[in-house]
């Protein structure tokens, strides 16, 4: 399946892109997206424990099952306010 991956703030800086369509095996989970990113850049492994994931603009846990065409966002620790 194809998902639309969106990265923000430090996640964008680590990966070097903001938005990309990526191919994942069927039955992939949100957590698999972080594993995919850790393969691109090992620094994601260090960040993994504090990055949250959102699917279609809602927070999800790492076990959340993805669907084709989902918008998956990697949300580094927020610092608004």
């Amino acid at each position, binding site marked *: 399946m194809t998902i639309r991956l969106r990265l923000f703030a430090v996640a964008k800086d680590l990966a070097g892109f903001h938005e990309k369509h990526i191919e994942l095996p069927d039955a992939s989970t949100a957590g698999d997206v972080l594993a995919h990113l*850790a393969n691109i850049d090992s620094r994601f492994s260090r960040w993994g424990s504090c990055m*949250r994931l959102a699917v279609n603009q809602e927070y999800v846990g790492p076990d959340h099952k993805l669907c084709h065409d989902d918008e998956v966002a990697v949300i580094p620790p927020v610092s*608004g306010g």
Partner: protein
Amino acid sequence: MIQLTSLPIDIEAVIDCVKAPETGAVDVFIGTTRDQTAGRKVTALEYETYEPMALKVMERVAGEAGGRWSLGRIAIVHRIGRLNVGEASVIIAVSSAHRAEAFEACRFLIDKLKQEVPIWKREFFADGSVEWSGQTPESAPARGGL
């Protein structure tokens, strides 16, 4: 009124928007950008957001506050993009008939915003370095994930 804006926040307009003749109390929280972080001089800041999700989460937390307290109106406006030191980055205004509810709801909303809303601050330091604020893997408690 739930908004992200790249223009300076018109504080009076936001307050006017929550006032109503049947609600006598308004509490307003304003966050302004500080001139230093951990003793290092800051010269400017930039806020990035995941806009559609930020708006959704702001709407959700406003709904949660409306469920917990008897409120008039709620406004949450966050500034995005480049800011100078001393400018307002966020304003939350809540009206209610009784002041206790306005205070409690306003505090709940700024706490939730700082925990949940996907907005990120980047600070430009006087020494030329630029850093994303907040937790790093070293400072953060584990949250699961990888």
